């Protein structure tokens, strides 16, 4: 098997059908498998999932968690189930553009040609589209300079669906952290970078995939706790950054948590998080008010 495409699924067969259709349109025609791990979906959604697997032109391997175990656990099951030499991810409901795999695998071979010993993940620019909005935003990945700082700052987004690498390079990072209901991919990216892993872009700036974004149903408290867990876990590398850098990150984590609570209409908690962001870094808070008018 050449390439495994790993997709976690939970109660979203329509989204998964969209994702699989985008994979069917890929210009890269090498041997591939789609591995779907269903994380304890409701019975009617599992039935729809079974129908999709039976009718798809793609080779789909379906694994089912007997009960809902959460995203990091499901990602670990996916990682274990992959049989391909190369590996990529996609979340159910997101889409690849047709040239994605071709362009990124090409770039991966180029990097292996330059330095076979280096552990490389090929990322790519992507589109964000808030669910219910027709407007797409281009997300540009910054792979220059220090990847760890870029990941903390968010100029390099820790989105698994942007990646292609060897399966071994993903397994070398270890398992996803079960303590992280959110942002387990950020932790995974950081661990890869801390081991000396390198991120590269393919030879194109064009967005290669589309992320249908939503905060609905995602608790701000989970986001905040996950950020704090990550900051604690990676405190050694974080302490190597300046105080200003760390204060900015604290401001950012409360602001991000506030965005999630606002989008889930929890205005009291939103106000609390905004206040805590002001305490974490008053200067950054002031700039945010002046520049963005406090827009989350």
């Amino acid at each position, binding site marked *: 098997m*050449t390439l495994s495409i790993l997709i976690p699924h939970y109660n979203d067969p329509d989204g998964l059908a969209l994702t699989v259709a985008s994979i069917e349109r890929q210009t890269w*025609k*090498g*041997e591939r498998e789609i591995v779907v791990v269903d994380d304890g979906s409701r019975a009617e959604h599992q039935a729809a999932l079974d129908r999709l697997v039976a009718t798809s032109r793609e080779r789909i391997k379906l694994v089912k968690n007997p009960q809902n175990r959460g995203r990091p656990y499901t990602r670990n099951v996916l990682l274990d189930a992959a049989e391909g030499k190369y590996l990529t991810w996609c979340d159910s409901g997101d889409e690849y553009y047709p040239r994605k795999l071709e362009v990124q*695998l*090409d770039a991966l*071979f*180029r990097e292996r*040609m330059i330095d076979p010993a280096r552990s490389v993940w090929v990322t790519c620019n992507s589109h964000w589209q808030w669910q219910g909005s027709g407007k797409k935003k281009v997300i540009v990945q910054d792979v220059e300079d220090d990847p760890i700082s870029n990941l903390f700052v968010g100029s390099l987004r820790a989105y698994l669906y942007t990646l292609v690498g060897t399966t071994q390079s993903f397994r070398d990072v270890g398992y996803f952290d079960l303590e992280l209901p959110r942002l387990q991919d950020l932790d995974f990216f950081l661990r890869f970078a801390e081991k000396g892993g390198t991120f590269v872009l393919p030879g194109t700036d064009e967005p290669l995939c589309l992320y249908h974004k939503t905060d609905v149903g995602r608790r701000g408290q989970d986001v905040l706790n996950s950020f704090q867990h990550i900051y604690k876990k990676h405190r050694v590398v974080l302490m190597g950054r300046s105080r200003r850098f760390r204060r900015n990150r604290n401001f950012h984590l409360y602001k991000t948590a506030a965005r999630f609570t606002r989008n889930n209409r929890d205005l009291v908690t939103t106000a609390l998080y905004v206040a805590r962001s002001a305490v974490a870094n008053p200067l950054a808070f002031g700039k945010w008010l002046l520049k963005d008018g406090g827009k989350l």
Partner: protein
Amino acid sequence: VKLTVVAGWRELMLPIGIPLATLEGLLRTVEPTAVLPQAAWARGESTSPYHTFLDDVAVDSERRIELFLEYVEAATAPGAHPFVVLPYERLIPEGGPLDARLPRFVARAEARFGHGSVRLRRLEMSRGSSELLRRLAAEVGVATRPASPEVGSQLDVEALAGRGEAFDAMRSNFTHAILELGERRVAATSLFGMAPGRVGLIAEQLAATNMRLDADVPLERIVAELDKGGELWALLTRPVARPPAPIIVQVPVEPATPLKKPRAS
């Protein structure tokens, strides 16, 4: 057979490269499942459509070939038959050494895919074109490579002869090669004789205006034209119709350098 390596004389394949998509179309006329994996990563800054990564750096070539073969394997859909086109060898080497890259590549491919699973074919424009170039080279005093063995390989070599869209570029290259040889022979006052090195430019202009030498023009006519200081205008043609599909001719080739058989694992 898991891989077909197509060898082509540099004189006929370069300098006007045949787009790989066109070449793939040609190959599909003889092998319906043919695919030509396009290793963009391997080309670097080169504009050549072929796998010039084998040219770029002499060191570490074994690993580079191995990685390329892995790419070919990875990029080929199940049920498709991959081809690799390597136009390295010179028909008119002018005393240069035999090109070792093709047999080296074939040997690595055999080691990877298994003995007997790699087929080698030669891409020819027509049955007589290469022979004509050889004879003309001898006529103007340029050393030529023996007709056989062409490749240091124990595999049989097939000649893939034919005409069609892909051969337009080959015919332009053929014209270029003839002009290059003719430059040594023509009178100093002729178009080519006055300024050695203009051949490439003139060949490009001829290609742009769709003017090419007939691949099967008799040598005697070319020599006669060159002898009188002519510029081959009388021999130039414009293709008007596309003849039918290619034909395949089997040409047995003696091995020049036995290759190591893959070790049993």
